[in-house]
């Protein structure tokens, strides 16, 4: 992604032209967020991903409303042989359920699970990482060993166990299980950021002014350390969505009549011979979601922190 290197607005501060050294007029040309926005919109893939994600979210909101209960309403008079129409662009399944609306409902479930799981991941990760990075010493050591332990456990299998033993079929349990196992990367990122920020001038200034540890962490350091969390969270949406689909596919997640991209695949499996297309619809939805989330995450990383840009 080296092509967007040409117009690089490095100078956030410009000296007044012609002025001598001692009368440099420090005019802030662009704020940090303006720079971030500009860098983000210069990245073509990131913008495409943003639009794709927006389109997916909008469809997940609008179509379930338009469709009403058609995502689970069976109709014995309709079936796979019925021609596709404007009201049923993907036709009907073996129970006469409108596949398109079911797909959109499943997409909505995926997005809800993805966003909330990532919220938990970001929450736990930030809390854990900030305490660890701020405290340092023994506490830091202990907390980081806990991260090592969670990282050593087989991730997907752990989610599977939690969901199966705490009650499968519940959206809440799935969100909880994914969130509880996936926060380690976020915690490490926040910790690294805190180790760096701890020595920063503004933190030292706050300390000198007598601010409490809590205030320094929450008001001063977390806002500065949030960029990597946002990136990790966006990328995490992709993982969470796929994990949910895999759980539901294996029969541990949501079960029919609830709609999930995973259980739609399980259902489509029985129609391998007669309706081969049915396995493509949920799969393509998943791929679109994953692509949108990962390119959005990459774009955000490049925009928020150009130093982290990797030439790959």
């Amino acid at each position, binding site marked *: 992604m080296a092509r967007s290197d040409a117009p690089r607005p490095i100078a956030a501060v410009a000296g007044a032209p012609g002025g001598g050294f001692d009368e440099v007029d420090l005019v802030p040309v662009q704020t940090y967020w303006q720079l971030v926005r500009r860098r983000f919109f210069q990245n073509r893939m990131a913008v495409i991903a943003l639009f794709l994600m927006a389109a997916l979210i909008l469809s997940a909101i609008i179509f379930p409303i338009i469709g009403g209960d058609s995502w689970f309403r069976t109709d014995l008079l309709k079936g796979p042989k019925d021609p596709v129409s404007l009201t049923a662009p993907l036709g009907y399944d073996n129970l006469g359920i409108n596949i398109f609306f079911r797909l959109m409902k499943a997409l909505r479930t995926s997005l809800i699970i993805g966003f909330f799981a990532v919220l938990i991941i970001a929450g736990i990760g930030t809390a854990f990482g900030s305490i660890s990075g701020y405290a340092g010493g023994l506490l830091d050591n202990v907390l980081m060993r806990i991260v090592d*332990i969670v990282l050593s456990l087989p991730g997907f299998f752990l989610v599977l166990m939690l969901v199966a*033993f705490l009650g499968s079929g519940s959206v809440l349990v799935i969100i909880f299980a994914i969130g509880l196992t996936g926060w380690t990367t976020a915690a490490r990122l926040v910790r690294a950021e805190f180790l760096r920020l701890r020595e920063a001038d503004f933190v030292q200034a706050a300390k000198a002014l007598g601010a409490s540890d809590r205030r320094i962490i929450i008001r001063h350091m977390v806002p500065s350390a949030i960029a990597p969390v946002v990136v990790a969270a966006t990328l995490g949406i992709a993982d969470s969505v796929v994990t949910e689909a895999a759980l539901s596919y294996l029969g541990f997640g949501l079960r029919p009549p609830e709609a999930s991209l995973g259980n739609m695949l399980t259902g489509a499996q029985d129609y391998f011979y007669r309706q081969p297309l049915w396995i493509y619809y949920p*799969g393509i939805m998943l791929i679109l979601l994953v692509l949108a989330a990962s390119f959005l995450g990459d774009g955000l990383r490049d925009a928020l922190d150009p130093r982290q840009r990797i030439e790959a």
Partner: protein
Amino acid sequence: MATYILRRLIQSIPIIIGISVISFAIVYLTPGSPVDKFRTPRVSPATIQNLIHLYGLDQPLPLQFWNWFTHFWSFPWDNTAWGYSFTDGLPVRDRIFQRIPSTLLLMGTSLLVTVVLAIPIGILQAVKQYSWADKVITTFETIGYAMPTFWLGLILKQLLAVQFKVLPLYGQNTLGKQGDIADMALHLVLPVTTLAIISVAGWSRYMRAAMLEVLRQDYVRTARAKGLGPGRVIGRHALRNAMIPIVTLLGLTVPGLLSGAAITETVFSWPGLGWLGVQSVTERDYPVVLAVVMIGGTMVIIGNLLADIAYAIVDPRIHY
């Protein structure tokens, strides 16, 4: 080096205890008891009490943990160390050891395929950076990386086993053809392809990035300047250094060799450890679940250690 390995081994003890505590806690603190399935009208409450006593479930939890934990590591000489399976009453250790060859075969083959394909692809991409071949391959990598494993497995199954009927749908052997190598190889094709496509997509990206990094170095330019041919520059000077991060990646893949690929194995009903794990979670076969998680966790720790050691061996700049 020896002291480093020793130190790392000592450091991994608390981590092993940690993963044991967590897996034990998940299994034992979740609702439901292992004896629940015996609670039918035909079993008297006294029998249930006897069972609870027999399995030691009436002891305090820390004591139960300690008994389990200490017994667990006697597995090399004691085949009851991991307890008995709730589903068929066989020692868990035997059930698991029985599955290991299948998992090793599947994971080993796909790792081999991945390495053989991904490294040349990555090199090609790096050497011909921004060429059309690089762009096309990058596109495929991105899609391959975004594809969920189980879905890829499903479409491969649909296309090659159902539509064109060239490959078997699932399992390790056709019924009645146990031990037939050719038959097993045919059954291996689909799951290996599934795993390989996903990991080639990831690995070739790493290889490309590593190679690009190396190709920018001064010593590569020097090698070119002194008149070496492109084959020698890339093969002798660049590749050997670009392989360093790949060796680390290899170390991190080792745990998967034993713990298997739960999802792929389940999709193809491949009788490996991963599928056994998923099955035992379904059946709430707690001793098997615990053993599978413990093996997975321990393998990750060993894999990390191997990766670090390998890193030090291939990169002479690193001293411990």
